[in-house]
């Protein structure tokens, strides 16, 4: 199998980096959703894994 065929069959896509996205890293872009999610996890915890 060629490298290209291997890449096309891979579940891991070939992803390019966009450095402009780094300005958004660490920002809370969904404050309400995140607060709600934190409340759920604080109350329910994680599954027994």
């Amino acid at each position, binding site marked *: 199998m060629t490298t290209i065929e291997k890449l096309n069959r891979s579940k*891991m896509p070939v992803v390019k980096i966009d450095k402009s996205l780094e*300005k*958004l*890293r660490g920002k809370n872009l969904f404050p309400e959703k995140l607060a709600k999610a934190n409340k759920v996890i604080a109350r329910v915890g994680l599954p027994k894994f």
Partner: protein
Amino acid sequence: MKLPRYDYLTEGNAELFKFNSHGIKGEIKKLVVYTKMLEEDIYNLAFGDYDEETDSINDQVITNNNDSQKVLATVASTLYVFTEKHPLVWVYATGSNHARTRLYRMGITTNLEEITIDFVVYGLIEDVWYEFEKEKNYEAFLIKRKLH
């Protein structure tokens, strides 16, 4: 994932992903965001329409670009990249409303066999986590990469 998906861009930590949805409404920029939660090793997954001018995201808007399956497949695909970079974390996901959460459930159901090769998936019902099963309505989902 075998389903058609859009190509996307990410940044060095693989916590933000940007792609363009192409459909009947034209080109719409989308952003997928993994945000660290208060509890250690849990990230919240969210996505929505991205306004580059204001750096804001709207996850309430109904885009109706007639490509929801392709958008969901793209979001699901980012899980592989994110968990490659963060293999030990849990990912928490829920829709912005019941209809969206149901859409997520349908997306997981459609691809369950493939997803469960690489991930464990739990669904939340009345404050209890259950291993994901088809035909059940969940309020939220937790996903973790299997360590092969």
